[in-house]
């Protein structure tokens, strides 16, 4: 477990240092590897390791909710979901930092204090994710996990407020696609928040099954919980795919 934390911390550090280096960016390629290109690859990788594992996580959740499977299989599936979902959680925590650095390359400049906030957000959020995952049974881990919904709500609000302000002063006039991506990101945060809320009965039923075996009520609760979360899960996928389209096409 300690090894995993060190690896995660090192990964975060590498991403952070790479991102910080990209503060001086160039969109021009000259046969060399530019900072912009490195950050762009990281951006793509975050998308890949966010949406890709999320598909597996969803497929496993349908199995976990399947009452025809043995309780051990369903509980093991639940444990596996927790492991798989670390990928999307890590990616979402770093996306604003990497995305924010990339916006510099398309002409959206930030004052130093804003850029410092953008660059620091990734490591801070990543630390919260790592603590929430690997220290879930400690007081700190529980605190992080319990406040995650509120944190997402705060971040969604902050992103929307920032976009609204930038839009109102014409800062995003030349890059409406960046505006679209940020609004979609805020929507994803809200959808993710709703998924967490809707899946609370699912998690509770799983915990109850692990403690005292499945009951008809817990099976029904799981199915209903998953059905309630499904529109938001699909909403996240759609929003991610749409954001990727905006990033590729960059319509003006």
């Amino acid at each position: 477990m300690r090894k995993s934390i060190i690896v995660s911390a090192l990964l975060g550090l590498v991403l952070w240092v790479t991102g910080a280096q990209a503060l001086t960016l160039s969109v021009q390629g000259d046969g060399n590897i530019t900072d912009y290109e490195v950050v762009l690859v990281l951006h793509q990788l975050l998308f890949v390791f966010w949406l890709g594992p999320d598909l597996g996580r969803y497929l496993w959740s349908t199995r976990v909710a399947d009452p025809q499977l043995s309780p051990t299989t369903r509980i093991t599936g639940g444990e596996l979901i927790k492991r798989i979902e670390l990928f999307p959680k890590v990616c979402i925590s770093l996306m604003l930092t990497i995305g924010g650095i990339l916006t510099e390359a398309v002409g959206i400049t930030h004052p130093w204090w804003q850029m410092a906030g953008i660059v620091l957000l990734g490591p801070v959020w990543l630390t919260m994710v790592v603590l929430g995952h690997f220290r879930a049974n400690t007081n700190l881990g529980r605190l992080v996990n319990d406040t995650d919904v509120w944190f997402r709500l705060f971040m969604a609000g902050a992103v929307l407020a920032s976009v609204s302000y930038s839009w109102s002063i014409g800062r995003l006039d030349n890059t409406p696609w960046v505006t679209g991506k940020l609004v979609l990101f805020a929507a994803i945060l809200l959808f993710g928040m709703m998924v967490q809320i809707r899946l609370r009965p699912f998690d509770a039923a799983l915990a109850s099954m692990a403690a005292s075996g499945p009951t008809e009520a817990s099976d029904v609760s799981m199915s209903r919980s998953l059905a309630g979360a499904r529109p938001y899960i699909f909403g996240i996928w759609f929003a991610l795919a749409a954001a990727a389209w905006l990033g590729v096409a960059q319509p003006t």
Partner: protein
Amino acid sequence: MEMTETFIFWKYLHILMFVGWVGADMSVFLSAKKSTDESLPFDTRIMLLHMALRIELIPRTMWKAALPLGVMLSREMGLLQITDTQLALVWAFSIIWWAISMTGAIWYDKDWGRKFAHFGNFLIFGVGVSLIVAAITSAYGYGPFEASGTWLLWKVGLYGLINLTCLAIVVAYDPMGPAFGRLAVEGSTPEIEGLIKRTFNIAVLPIWSTYFLVVSVAFIATTKFL
């Protein structure tokens, strides 16, 4: 190069392909790894393996899709001169290749399914070697790709190599089915558990090599530094 709408469309699909390949494969890897846990009951381990194989249909599809999508992008960029008929043949081959691969993967527990999978392995080998050869001949100016697009030649060659590492995964993982068959009949024994663990540990090498190569290909495509 001007970014036409068609180019953007194929590029977008190319990136989604990357998502469904390496991204989705994380769930496959973790599920397969968990199936080697000898503390779990047999039905749970079988379900883990089964789910790994079911989710793997997504990366399997994307791996095959990389061929026609790559050809479309290369053509759009003017780095591959190919007629409409040849293009149609590439698509036809890719669809047939995918269908054979999926048939073998979906019906892995049937004899005829295994025959499809076996034939699919030959196709993978053929595609892998052909693409490596195509990259080398193109680098020497004999086509089919433009020699000037060196980054693309690297991509093509590495995609060929990825096919071979994927084939290595299939071959390395092959003893897993019979090992689980024995596990069902004989129960958990140190010998069978050793075989399962060994098989997985051997397969890990080409699995991680594949991940590394796919990410490298993405890096080359984005930076075009070669």
